[in-house]
């Protein structure tokens, strides 16, 4: 908690200054709304339910897309590890595609899937799959040989070694990859939601997009705040505890 106090003070000073700048008319409210205006938007959007229903849609998409991407990445990672042929072909492709900004998948997604949920999932999967696959492969390769030798001496072999040694030994690095994959998935989904319009089910990316079309800067900034908070919350609520657990049990 001690660490929270300086952060709170700094943010409070920043917001006060911003509010003052807006009130004094230093910047046009069309270009930059005041913090109070943003809060008002968030409050209104929260009260009439738009914000929460959009957030629900977005998080649902993220969950499905990320799970698909993570499972696919895990599988592809194993394949890259096990097959030199796959490593020299698919592995190279994965390395390249990992660097492709995920918004680049959006045009293809629309042409293939139309304006559907499938297009959303496709962009998220493509955004996260490759980096997760590469992390998984690296993680397995980094498992110290001595653990495998110890396990074999004790009579373990085949899938038992995988289940009881390779996987747990590689777990910290795999989780590192999963965390990176999550960041990619989140970015991809925002890109997809801004790019792919689905009229009946809109997520917070679309909310951001509508804000721009309506020239409603309070909405734009408000949604950006929500996006940042979701990212922070997932990191703190899911990845940080896992990290802490691993550090406590393994001392690294």
């Amino acid at each position: 908690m001690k660490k929270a106090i300086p952060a709170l003070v700094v943010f409070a000073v920043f917001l006060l200054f911003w509010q003052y700048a807006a009130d004094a008319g230093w910047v046009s409210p069309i270009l930059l709304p005041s913090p109070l205006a943003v809060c008002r938007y968030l409050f209104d959007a929260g009260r009439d339910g738009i914000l929460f229903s959009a957030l629900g849609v977005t998080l649902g998409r993220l969950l499905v897309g990320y799970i698909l991407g993570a499972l696919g990445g895990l599988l592809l990672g194993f394949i890259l590890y096990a097959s030199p042929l796959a490593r020299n072909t698919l592995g190279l492709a994965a390395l390249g595609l990992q660097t492709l900004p995920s918004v680049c998948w959006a045009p293809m997604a629309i042409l293939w899937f139309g304006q559907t949920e499938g297009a959303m999932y496709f962009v998220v999967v493509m955004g996260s799959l490759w980096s997760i696959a590469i992390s998984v492969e690296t993680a397995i390769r980094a498992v110290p040989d001595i653990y495998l030798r110890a396990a074999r001496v004790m009579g373990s072999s085949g899938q038992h070694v995988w289940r009881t040694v390779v996987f747990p030994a590689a777990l910290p690095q795999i989780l590192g990859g999963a965390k990176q994959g999550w960041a990619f998935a989140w970015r991809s989904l925002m890109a997809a939601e801004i790019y792919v319009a689905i009229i009946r089910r809109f997520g917070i990316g679309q909310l951001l997009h509508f804000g721009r079309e309506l020239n409603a800067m309070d909405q734009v900034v408000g949604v950006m705040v929500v996006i940042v908070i979701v990212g922070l919350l997932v990191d703190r609520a899911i990845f940080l505890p896992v990290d802490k657990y691993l550090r406590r049990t393994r001392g690294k």
Partner: protein
Amino acid sequence: MTILEMTGVEKRFPGPKGGEPVIALRGLSLAIGEGEYVCILGKSGCGKSTLLSIAAGLEKPDAGRVVCRGETVTGPDRHRMLMFQDAALFPWLDVLDNVLYGLTFVEGLTRREKLARAEDNLAMVGLSDFQRFRIHELSGGMRQRAALARALAPDPDILLIDEPFSALDAMTREQLYADIQRIWKETGKTILMVTHNVREAVCLGERVLILSTPGEVAANEPVNLPHPRSMNDPNLTLVAAHISTFLQG
């Protein structure tokens, strides 16, 4: 009765790019009797670790054969336990679960019997109070004790030990010398241990096999001192000095 017999064992490794292959073992033969404590002594690079890997079945010899209790060794199994230079305990398990892992493939034991056996072995190495500790919370000496308990728990025919004390400080080492002699007496286990430390070999082994470079048995020296021995025994120093001459020559 002979527990482990190696006859004419050869092992080569591919040399550095295009160079001559490196010979690790050249027609090595040895026999270890039941209940014996034999130390293999050699300079680094003389193929000591390779010898243990082959005895454990982790590596296949290029020529020759390894027979354990009358059966040719074709692969690793829990009847020949290998203890590694760094303990090779699994950091994702606690101490007790590490020992239990060694019992996974022991047939005919209930879950409860396995637990009892793991606890007994941890008690024998003096780690009863550390069962639920994580590996990173143990000192180097405690790690080797835990590894010893893990290797002993499945009741192997022979314990193969690869320089287990080389990374430890002198005081911890002397305590472990005493402990391992006691455990050897208590359990009657057959032990084959590899080391580059002459005094350590003389302190622990009933006989010392000296390995030349590249790996052949150059000498077989019995150590006729009563156990338990202490590193500070002057007689031990005399034997060690005598054996050192083989290594220099």
